[in-house]
């Protein structure tokens, strides 16, 4: 997962406490799953161990969790490398969605596969409408809109695939029943 690199990125503009990091993470990636405190501290521990981050000081009147951290030179380089590295485009064609359709067809029940696909499409459509609503909301921030766009584009791709698959299964069904 990319949480270590996201934390490195959040530290790029200056030292932060663990608590600040969690808040910044949830603000900048508003539609992602929120990160837990425990995970932030565990990750910071690993980053310190690898020499990418060092404790930068402590608030005198606070406990151990008020330690702030800053990037080392090594940490900056690691961040740069990570940003520059190209992600492999869909290295594995694996998805629960895909698996379900394949299995349903394996079982030989085209009707069940189609019903599942139709239900899944309805659910996708509802989610798509929700995210579109985020975009048209006057109060939406740029981060909100970008995150919504990301979801919309993926849902759009899924929906297209679902529709094509529905058509294919219908064709298959016709072939089977007319034979």
């Amino acid at each position, binding site marked *: 997962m990319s949480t270590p690199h996201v934390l490195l990125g959040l530290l790029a503009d200056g030292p932060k406490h663990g608590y600040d990091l969690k808040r910044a993470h949830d603000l900048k990636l508003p539609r992602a799953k929120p990160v837990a405190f425990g995970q932030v501290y565990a990750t910071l521990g690993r980053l310190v161990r690898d020499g990418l981050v060092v404790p930068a000081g402590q608030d005198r009147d606070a406990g151990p969790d008020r330690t702030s951290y800053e990037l080392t030179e090594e940490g900056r380089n690691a961040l740069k490398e990570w940003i520059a590295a190209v992600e492999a485009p869909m290295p594995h064609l694996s998805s629960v969605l895909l698996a379900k359709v394949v299995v349903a067809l394996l079982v030989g029940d085209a009707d069940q596969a189609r019903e599942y696909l139709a239900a899944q499409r309805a659910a996708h459509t509802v989610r798509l409408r929700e995210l579109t609503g985020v975009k048209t909301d006057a109060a939406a921030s740029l981060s909100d809109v970008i995150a919504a766009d990301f979801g919309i584009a993926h849902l*759009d791709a899924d929906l297209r695939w679902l529709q094509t698959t529905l058509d294919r299964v219908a064709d298959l069904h016709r072939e089977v029943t007319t034979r």
Partner: protein
Amino acid sequence: MSYLSARGLVRSYGRTPALRGVNVDVEEGEIVAVTGPSGCGKSTLLHCLAGILRPDAGEVSYRGQRIDTLSEGARAALRRTEFGVLFQFGQLVAELTAAENVALPLLLAGTGRREARTAALSWLDRLGVADLADQRPGEMSGGQQQRCAVARSLVTEPRVLFCDEPTGALDSLAGEQVLGHIVRLAREQRTTVVLVTHDVQVAAYGDREIMLRDGAADPTGLGTVAAQR
């Protein structure tokens, strides 16, 4: 009875059936997306609902009144006063400036030149293209033209706005802006919107989706209407 409804609509082009018995209900203030693959009859449905085309069979009623039986003149008057229509492209008059294009429906309704221009300018401003008021369509980008077209379709403050692939000719950001304007202004004015599109992203701007397939409504999206025939 719904605000706008169609019962058993049938319409053919020559021997090609475009609609074969479509039922549709649209409530007041709703934004309804009509989707389906190309050739499913969605544009024809929009044209019938808007009183542009007469169905071969079936009825269309608006606020409890049959409109498919009205004369061409009466339906033209209805489209001019109650309805707004927005197409993919090519609806602005090339020789008129943006402001004159937007003012045209008001002028047709008998509004004075000055008053119509003021209204047109305010609508152009609401769509963020006030600075283009004195340019002709040929001098604008596709997105700018389409915003002027939105302004023109809304300037009469219609109760129902019919959009046929309103962003079909635009890139995704320009399309998003146009759709954003339509949805925002429709909500402000409580305008009912019928939005025809083949694009699921565009359809997602609606509150509800009506799926068509082979000239008939396909409520489950199973796409089996043709298959089961």
